[in-house]
């Protein structure tokens, strides 16, 4: 029962975070302002900031809430923890561009700064019933395409 309240609480939090107008400012994550051109994209930017901040801070309970619902259905939280690794701790991540492969499926280009090195990676985000969800990629032997998203 406690778990249900936790999940419901998190969902309400995500909803309100999505509604407030100003994007938060974090030292770990940022957004290229010119990449955002609508309220829906602002919502995406917010989800991106929160999600990657959580990953960087190893707050996997929060990042898990943003993963695609069907992935959460297949991988319960303990399985997620086993897969997540912590390759992004101490990095800085910036949303640089949003493109769409369908109206509700966005590919986000992100810049990952680790020390003085910059890597260019991608994210897949899907908009379902008013909220953006992240596609979690983590395989031991990813294809070249998958590696771009990890």
């Amino acid at each position, binding site marked *: 029962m406690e778990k249900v309240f936790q999940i419901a609480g998190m969902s309400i939090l995500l909803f309100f975070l999505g509604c407030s107008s100003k994007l938060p400012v974090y030292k770990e994550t940022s957004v290229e302002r010119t990449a955002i051109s609508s309220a829906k994209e602002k919502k995406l930017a917010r989800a991106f900031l929160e999600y990657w901040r959580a990953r960087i801070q190893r707050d996997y309970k929060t990042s898990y809430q943003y993963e695609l619902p069907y992935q959460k*259905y297949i991988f319960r939280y303990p399985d997620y923890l086993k897969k997540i690794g912590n390759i992004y701790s101490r990095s800085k991540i910036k949303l640089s561009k949003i493109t769409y492969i369908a109206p509700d499926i966005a590919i986000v280009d992100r810049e990952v700064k680790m020390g003085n090195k910059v890597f260019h990676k991608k994210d897949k985000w*899907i908009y379902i*019933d008013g909220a953006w969800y992240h596609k979690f990629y983590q395989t031991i032997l990813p294809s070249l395409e998958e590696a771009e998203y990890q």
Partner: protein
Amino acid sequence: MIRLSIFIFLIFSSLLAVEFDIQRDSSIEVTKSDVNALKRYLKEKFKFHISDKGARKVVKENRILANEYLKKDLLKKQDKDLLKIELEMKLADKFTEYLQRKIKIPENVLKSYYYDHREDYKQSDEVTLERIRFKNFDEAMKFYNEILKQKEKKDHLLKKYHGKVIYKGTVKKERLKNSIQSFLKEEMQNTYLPPMVLQADRIDVYYVHTYQKAKGYKPYIKVKKEIENILYKRTFNREREKILSRYSHEGL
């Protein structure tokens, strides 16, 4: 009828044992329910549809052979044990599936799978074609070779080589047999495919009038059930473990 009896004994109300026995029939008879069972089995296992008459024949033939096997006392204990293990595995899977399907998968879980796998749910390409049946391979081959050179003489060649158009229409590509699908190419039109032998006296030549590339995706509502089944399969082992944990007091 071969009797497959399952007895469940409750010993001290906690130990569960499945026992079964196979005995030969006193007379060979096939019921409507046997026919339906075989039809369901072939459909689920091989996506194969069979007529009632065909199913009845197959059941009867198998029953005759199975009874002969039992009459000659060829079913040894170790074979029986193997059948028992197979039966138990099936019952265990059925029970897990039964409990798993009682829990409804939330809509946003199903929708998220659909959006993430959109490419798997593309509408099927469509082909407008004619199926021309021949009774003889040589004639089919001659027809094929000649029609390639003189397409305008189709009627004449059909008559000459005793070909008959048995189907004309538009079908979804995915509904055609793989052997035919492998010949089809996008933007194909007015093309004859080489003769395909179904039986010694049933040879088909397909004439592809047009090939229309699919536009768009199958609607979510149409594939929802399919997605549910995929997710049930993906979480089957976890559910099985969960159910089994309830029986930990039985020494698991």
